[in-house]
């Protein structure tokens, strides 16, 4: 039954991914464009951890819109899904998960899970923290001080953070959400050179299910809507070759050994077995084992085709030696080889004998 549950989860998830994929293909393709087709390389991961920052040797700045759009469109993590993911959670992933959790709390929950490593490397990233929390939660204040402690000027940073936090309290919910995009835009996004761990960043950063936040950011989405349908197959080319350039052909000596070998390999690799009797007959026809199926009136006349017509008509050469040069035999044979004459001869013959025939009343 556990298996069954898993299957169900997978089904739900797949369906889910599908609907989102179809609905929201834009941002990911857009990312692909900018990030040279490695959307999954781009961790939508905020550098909240100093340690992590050093780890990311290829930290790439990603443009404002790219990231926001990606964030906008991330599907909400299904409860089952996250349950599944929790099983394989390590330190870094828990951080990611924290981010995901924060996102959900934008409008609904006002509580924040304390980070295991709450050190902040950049004040702007801690701003995010504040944004998500809303109220001055004691846990948050603690997080702020922890974050500030990593900065050189500890007290200033802390007070600045708290000030920001309170200021933030005054901002109405909707505006806050609108601002979110800008803040995320300013963040540095880590790009890891190697493949990520088994947790999908896409499912980590989830989106509000109340829908309000989504409509707020719609402007950016629609702005980019033009590129929505772009498939990776229409990407930029390498531009190494000039299109239409013709190769100066080398003297062709027919198929070389290599060509034959290639053809052989292709044939070996593919299924050449006939599927029915006709296909078998086709194969035999190709191998010349079977007399070809007649497709016109000349079928099977290959030998005749090489004989020109006059050889059928002018037959004098066959009379040369084996027959006398003159006399009745010669004459007879001449008539034989010219059939038409033959008929005329009989016509004349019977015309001459007309009287005899009349007498005989034939």
């Amino acid at each position, binding site marked *: 039954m556990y298996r069954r549950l898993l299957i169900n989860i997978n089904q739900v998830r797949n369906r889910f991914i599908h609907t989102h994929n179809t609905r929201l293909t834009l941002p990911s393709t857009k990312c692909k464009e900018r990030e040279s087709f490695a959307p999954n390389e781009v961790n939508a991961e905020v550098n909240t951890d100093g340690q992590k920052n050093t780890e990311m040797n290829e930290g790439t700045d990603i443009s404002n819109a790219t990231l926001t759009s990606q964030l906008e469109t991330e599907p909400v993590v299904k409860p089952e899904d996250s349950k599944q993911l929790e099983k394989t959670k390590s330190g870094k992933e828990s951080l990611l998960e924290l981010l995901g959790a924060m996102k959900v709390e934008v409008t609904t929950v006002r509580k924040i899970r304390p980070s295991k490593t709450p050190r902040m490397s950049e004040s702007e990233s801690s701003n995010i923290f504040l944004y998500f929390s809303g109220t001055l939660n004691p846990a948050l204040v603690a997080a702020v001080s922890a974050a500030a402690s990593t900065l050189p000027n500890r007290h200033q940073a802390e007070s600045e953070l708290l000030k920001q936090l309170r200021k933030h309290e005054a901002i109405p919910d909707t505006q806050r959400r609108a601002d979110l995009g800008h803040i995320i835009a300013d963040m540095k996004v880590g790009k890891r050179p190697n493949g990520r761990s088994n947790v999908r960043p896409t499912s980590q950063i989830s989106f509000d299910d109340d829908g309000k936040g989504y409509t707020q950011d719609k402007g950016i989405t629609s702005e980019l809507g033009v590129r929505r349908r772009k498939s990776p197959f229409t990407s930029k080319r*390498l531009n190494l*070759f000039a299109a239409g350039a013709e190769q100066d052909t080398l003297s062709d000596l027919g198929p070389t050994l290599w060509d034959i070998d290639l053809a052989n390999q*292709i044939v070996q690799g593919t299924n050449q077995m006939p599927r029915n009797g006709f296909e078998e007959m086709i194969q035999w026809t190709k191998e010349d084992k079977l007399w070809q199926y007649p497709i016109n009136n000349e079928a099977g006349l290959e030998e005749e085709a090489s004989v020109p017509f006059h050889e059928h008509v002018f037959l004098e050469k066959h009379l040369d030696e084996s027959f006398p040069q003159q006399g009745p035999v010669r004459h007879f044979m001449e008539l034989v080889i010219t059939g038409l004459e033959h008929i005329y001869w009989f016509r004349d013959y019977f015309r001459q004998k007309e009287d005899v025939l009349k007498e005989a009343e034939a």
Partner: protein
Amino acid sequence: MDQSQLAMVVPRRYLLSEPPSAPVMASSCSQALRHHVCKSSRILRIHLQKSYRSFALNSAADQQPAVSSPEEIVIPKKKTWSKEAVLQALASAVKRDPTASDSRFQDDPYLTPKTSSEFKLFSLSQESGRNAAKYFINTYPKYFQKDYAQPHIPCLMPETLEAQIEEASEAALIERIRMRKVKAAVDLYDQLLQAGTSVSLDVTNQLLDLICFCGDHDPAQENVPEQRNEETEDVQDEPQAKKGRAPKASGLLKATWKENNNAERIFALLSEPNTHSYSALIRGMVKYGAYSKAFSTYTDLLNNRLKADVQTFNALIIAAPEVKEKYNEKWELIVDLLKQMAEQKVKPNLLTLNAVLKALRRCGTLGKSQAFPVISEMKALSIDPSLASYNHLLTIFYKTGATIQGQTDILQEVMNEVSGKSFTAQDPDDAQFFITAMRICLDTKDMEQAYRVHELLGVGENWRLLGNDFQQNIYYARFFSLLCMMENIDVMLKWYRDLVPSVYYPSSNIMRDLLQALDTDNRLDLIPQIWKDIKQLGHANRQNLVEELLILMAREKHNQEVQESFAECALDIKKIYDTGDRGKVLLSWTAGSLSDLISVLLAAHRRQDAWEMLKLFKTHNRVPSEELLNRFLTCVKEAGEVNQAVELVQISAGFCLPETPKLIQRVQQEFELTEQQRNMLSDLEIQTFNSD
């Protein structure tokens, strides 16, 4: 009629320009025209229809009476049909029969394979029979000189395997090259050079081709019976099939490029090697693993102010990942080669770009960023990607073993590109596509894409690109795993009935998946049916499969009808345990399988059969569980068989089960016992107490 026939001979132009002042003639002409039209070809008729139609349209539009001059009839060009045209048309009308076995087995119903091992055996024996015949014909050509066929069929005649030209000449050399006799050709070449005869560059190049192609070894005799690679998918399935595997091309693969071999020697003798000579050498070096040497030969070629040809570049691109360590270095080398191609105005072909994509598979993350630009480059050069290109693309984005991270869209994009297209084989790797695509579907559990992949397989001649039997097996195994996992059982069974066993013989693992799918969808009532298939497919001797089946049957209560069929099925399974194959016992009873079987029988109220089974515990030294004995006792009680109840307790005591006292108690309480039985039970009680 005479007139009209005459008119037929008159050219059409003349007929059409006939003055209207001759009505009789005109009518006969129109008659003749009709006649002519009737006799003309189908295409001509179509043409006429078209012109009439357009004429009608025109007149309708212009609202004018039809007085326009008759249209010019264009006699179509003669259509030449290929000699297979009719057969192809006929073949395209034949649909696959899901109840029939593969076409090659239809000649002899006795040899219709029922299991995958039979399939392998029969198809391979057919193949090897053909090869054996060919071997004999070619080895003893003198016995096969009689030519019955009229007209002559060259391919049925023995091939000449011995060189015919004896004296040392260029013609003899060409003959030996054609027959792929490497050693003989090299010897003859040396002889010719020693005798001072010059050999033309073309022939020398052909010789170089031969030596490089064969790696300076005589190729294995072609007509030696040879098999395709027959690695079994799951080794446990077919342990004996491994023995039968032919040495294959393993000898060829081991061969490496040797320093100063004949190819290099002859190449060095050339005063002015041309592109072809270099090409042969470089391709040979790449084929036999001398990668860095190939690159130095290429440098040599450039130093000689020659241009390389496209094949040379293809070979070098294949070699590129081998000579560099780092991903970016590999890629830079490939880009460099491509740039040089462009400089030398060598147009890349499909194989070039497939080689690039294949190399990108080994360039780590660079592959993902560069793969699509490569494809775009292909398209810009109007080279249509083949299935191999897409295969490489998929492999780049979905690495085997790595976890899939939301890259479903790449497969989707690829499927968007290829859907509905008919492909022809152009690259040996083309046949990998379907397997790869289905693997990804299985990994991502994407049923929708799997259906699209399968649909693509049905387009045109694409089925040929699924590859040989072995690959087909893998493909269908993946497809079925996915179906078992994701589809509801009805759809699954629809596929199952369509494809099994006419194109696919499921392995025991797939049958287990199927059982689990039945379990998931609560359709365990189908088990007896599946068991028949399992037997048919030759998996009845798979212990774990049979045990799983028994567990599923015993686990839950079903209605009477189902229980009845389960019981029949269980007895059938028992037979398999009993008989074995040729005296060899295939399955051995375990306590679990025995008690499952007994439970199934008890549930169907087959107490007598179950009682027989119970005795097997002792014969096979297995110990029944307490639960089973209790259940048995309940059943015995329902039947009111006091004797059997006592016997049951005796059996339990015989196994020294710790639960015996409880059983005794139960029997004493629930049954009406005779004095004798009562005594017997109390004796047993004392015995078990003592043994404790």
